[in-house]
């Protein structure tokens, strides 16, 4: 009899765990499939696949320093992936996180090298806010084009990616260029503007905590707030949403601004936490990788934390793989592509009846 309260308190936990376990099955299978095919590709091209995969997965988490490096890479991936969860739940196919990251990084740098009179803490906040606002605005631009001109956000966000990257290139060769440097890059941020590190001697900084907070906030927003509910209804069925009095335009703009804002924040954090200055290729494709992060997480912001870390492991691993086995690092794109394909296939199989997508 005394075990009844224990069981009743355990049951939901167990059920939750087993549900999470089941939900994780498809993504795990997808990753294994992607790694398997990539291993085959390596073998076919004369590499020792088993060694490579070994280096890649285990090497990336072998000691404190490498784990910290993984989390450093996971920070922008989680932020972008979480934002894309919101956009994708609203059926906004934002392919422009890369550009939104660049917009955020540029605005953050512009604030970072100016306004030296501000107290450091306020200046850091300003840098992060500027990055988020710039990213949100860059995303909202595509949202406005979709709402007012019915231009597909798939195409416009991709075009805005190129424009943001070209704009960054202009900034670091022109207005923001460090006159002392021969290489096109901005001046370095003052040392007291760097995001604090909390795991010395590693480079890990508070950005990862911001990313975790963003994931929780996005989860609460999407699944525990009426505003998030409206976003999801618009994503599932815009006409039903319109009949229910939910403004499709406003929610589309909100969703893409949130996802752009988080990508911009990721850009600002890369500036204030890792690079400390702006240059032309500030992102190794985090914006595109974020798409895989969100999809693997089934557009659930909390699950995006796990998938963000996973992709960071793969990215760190692919760097090691290049160093130790001379395997071109670009293989990571192949793994990402395969992951996305298999996740897409799984979710299509799970859907039973006809339902329009997109």
């Amino acid at each position, binding site marked *: 009899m005394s075990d009844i309260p224990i069981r009743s308190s355990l049951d939901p936990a167990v059920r939750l765990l087993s549900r999470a376990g089941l939900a994780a099955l498809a993504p795990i299978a997808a990753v294994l499939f992607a790694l398997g095919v990539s291993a085959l590709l390596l073998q076919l091209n004369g590499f020792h696949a088993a060694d490579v995969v070994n280096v890649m997965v285990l090497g990336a988490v072998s000691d404190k320093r490498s784990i910290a490096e993984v989390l450093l890479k996971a920070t922008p991936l989680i932020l972008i992936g979480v934002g894309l969860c919101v956009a994708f739940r609203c059926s906004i*196919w934002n392919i422009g996180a890369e550009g939104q990251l660049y917009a955020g990084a540029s605005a953050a740098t512009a604030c970072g090298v100016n306004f030296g009179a501000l107290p450091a803490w306020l200046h850091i906040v300003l840098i992060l806010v500027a990055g988020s606002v710039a990213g949100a605005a860059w995303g909202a631009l595509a949202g406005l084009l979709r709402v007012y001109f*019915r231009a597909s956000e*798939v*195409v416009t966000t991709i*075009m805005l990616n190129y424009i943001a990257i070209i704009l960054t*290139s202009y900034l670091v060769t022109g207005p923001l260029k460090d006159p002392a440097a021969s290489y096109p890059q901005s001046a370095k941020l003052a040392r007291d503007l760097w995001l604090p590190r909390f795991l010395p001697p590693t480079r890990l900084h508070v950005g990862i905590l911001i990313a975790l907070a963003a994931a929780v906030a996005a989860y609460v927003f999407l699944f525990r707030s009426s505003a998030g509910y409206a976003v999801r209804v618009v994503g599932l069925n815009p006409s039903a949403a319109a009949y229910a009095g939910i403004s499709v335009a406003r929610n589309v703009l909100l969703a893409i601004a949130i996802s752009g804002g988080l990508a911009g924040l990721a850009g600002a954090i890369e500036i204030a936490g890792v690079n400390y200055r702006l240059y032309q290729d500030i992102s190794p494709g985090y914006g595109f990788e974020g798409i895989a992060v969100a999809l693997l997480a089934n557009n659930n912001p909390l699950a995006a934390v796990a998938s963000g870390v996973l992709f960071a492991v793969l990215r760190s691993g692919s760097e090691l793989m290049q160093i130790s086995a001379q395997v*071109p690092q670009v293989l990571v794109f192949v793994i990402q592509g395969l992951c*996305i*394909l298999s996740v897409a296939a799984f979710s*299509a199989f799970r859907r039973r009846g006809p339902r329009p997508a997109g």
Partner: protein
Amino acid sequence: MQTASMLDFLSTAVGADWRLATPLIFAATGEAICERAGVLNIGVEGIMLIGAFSGFATSHATGDLALGFGAGMASGFLTALVFAVFAVTIKANQIVAGVAINLLGLGLTSFLFRTYFISTGRGVDIARPLNIPFLSDIPYLGPALFQQNLLVYATIPVVIAAWGVLFRTSYGLTIRAVGEHPKAVDVTGKSVALYRYSAVLIGGALGGLGGAFLTLAHANQFVENITSGRGFIALSIVVFARWSPIGVFFVSLLFGLFYALQLQLQADPNVRVPYQALQALPYLTTIVALMLVRNRWDAPSMLGIPYWKA
């Protein structure tokens, strides 16, 4: 004197325009056919990259240009087949599948290029201009229009054929019906999936050809991400051209002009515009173009939506 140099400039610009528009024309014509069947393939960028690499690798190994172009088309076809399996048979989200194809295209071609070619540095012999007798001797007009390579000329028959097939054959009618009202096709006993497959595959072969043009008739080398967004621009050309192959031809020429101007103005020391402004031109134009065609009533109504047999 002034007029002569102006005419020279124009002649070079027009010639370069058509040449630079050629990969866009092939890819966008293929995409137009694909989208007419209701399938949105945003993986064109990846397909073009794979076509560019396969064409280059084949031509590099065999020394045969025609074989290179064939390999470009075949690899585009096969990549499109992968896409079609996911988009048509599995009914996965087409945008998601397209994103994956783009990542695969970029990853695979860069991986193979770095593994096998990065240290060779040897290019291939690219397609030579084919001077059309008499016409090519016309001053200004001749060099611009009648001293191009075979593939550039080929854009005209390809576009006309695509238009003819889409609008003057029963196959084309069915393709368009599959994009507008697949159920109507289904009840006549024809397979919606089969028609969609055919459209996606034709689109893939043309995309691969467009990619191969870049390495076999434009540059003589493969460079990582050599397409630099041309596949995405092809997508917006299709919208701007309202899903018509003839329209694709002229809209592509407009975009080709930006590439041509970019090349010419970058080479001109008197131009004092930051080079980034010229770089951004095609992308900015795409956005403006999409704003201009805000009324999208003629998009295939089932674009991007999988068909479930009742």
